[in-house]
């Protein structure tokens, strides 16, 4: 955990695991994320985050995690939330 866990940070990024593929950045519906110089992800607009978990679900490297997570119902994916950007 390189990002400190504090209430203001909606998602945590494990920098050592992130490979900078850019998927979370592209998939975030709120444009919360951006690439740093080394390609790895940084939180550019944490305040816009809606904790939709798309970044977490789409990250192939288990490198990004929504703090606290969502309700079991939502995590189950059973609600009719459409897929990321779909």
């Amino acid at each position, binding site marked *: 955990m390189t990002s400190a866990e504090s209430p203001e940070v909606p998602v945590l990024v494990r920098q050592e695991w992130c490979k900078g593929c850019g998927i979370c950045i592209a998939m975030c519906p709120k444009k919360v994320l951006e690439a740093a110089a080394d390609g790895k992800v940084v939180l550019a607009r944490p305040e816009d985050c809606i904790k939709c978990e798309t970044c977490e679900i789409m990250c192939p490297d288990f490198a990004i*995690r929504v703090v606290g997570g969502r309700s079991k119902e939502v995590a189950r994916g059973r609600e009719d939330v459409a897929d990321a950007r779909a």
Partner: protein
Amino acid sequence: MAVPIDDYLRTQFMPHIWCPGCGHGIILGAVLRAIGRLDLPKDEVCIVSGIGCASRAPGYLDFNTVHTTHGRALAFATGIKIARPDLHVIVLTGDGDAAAIGGNHLIHAARRNVGLTTVMFNNSIYGMTNGQYSPMTPRGRYASTAPYGNVERNFDMCELVRAAGGNYVARATTAHARQLSNYVENAIQTPGFAFVEAVTQCPTYFGRRNKMGTPVDMIEWFRKNSINAAAAAKLDPADLDGKIIIGEFYRGDAPEYTEVYDEVIERAKEAAAR
């Protein structure tokens, strides 16, 4: 409460070996979320794979895990399941592993209706060996052994598994990670043989050879070219050319192999007692 993915990972080995943007990690996440939602005890889960990039998954997972020989995961898994029917045996396999060298074990596991959940990571290429065409590479696509475009056609693996007797058959792509996870969950819950095809991106070989752009581009491509089974049923087959049909194709209730075998044991014991 979120699913405890970290608890399922052997985090000491992370980051994993998969390339940046490889879709295999997305599929693995979907599988782990399904296990998490079902709250399966870790000691009762057994993950079996063959050889390939996809098949490296079990090494990262804190269950009973076996990384077997190329193409044979389902045969190993059959032995495990039959010897210990109470275990949840999940096979993670690639399109080469499952559809090329392992094709026979796949159709026979489906026919026997052994209670295995199989997730095929279909990137339409042999990733591990640097990009040769696979039985899932569409005709005309390029690969290191198809420099003039692939001569062969690909399987419709869901149709094939269904025809072989599979009791649950579904397909989704990495662009549909939530749906995919739900399918895996349903697969685990369906008794008998369950098969989920997860269409995924290999940006390093398939993507590069076929000029498909970044991993994000590939995911977008999946999203745009996917069509739901219900919608597809209404279209002319010709319009489906090149499309990825996603959805749950079959969910049956044929008796599971080990349950039928338990009846044999009863009959045998009676016979022996006589």
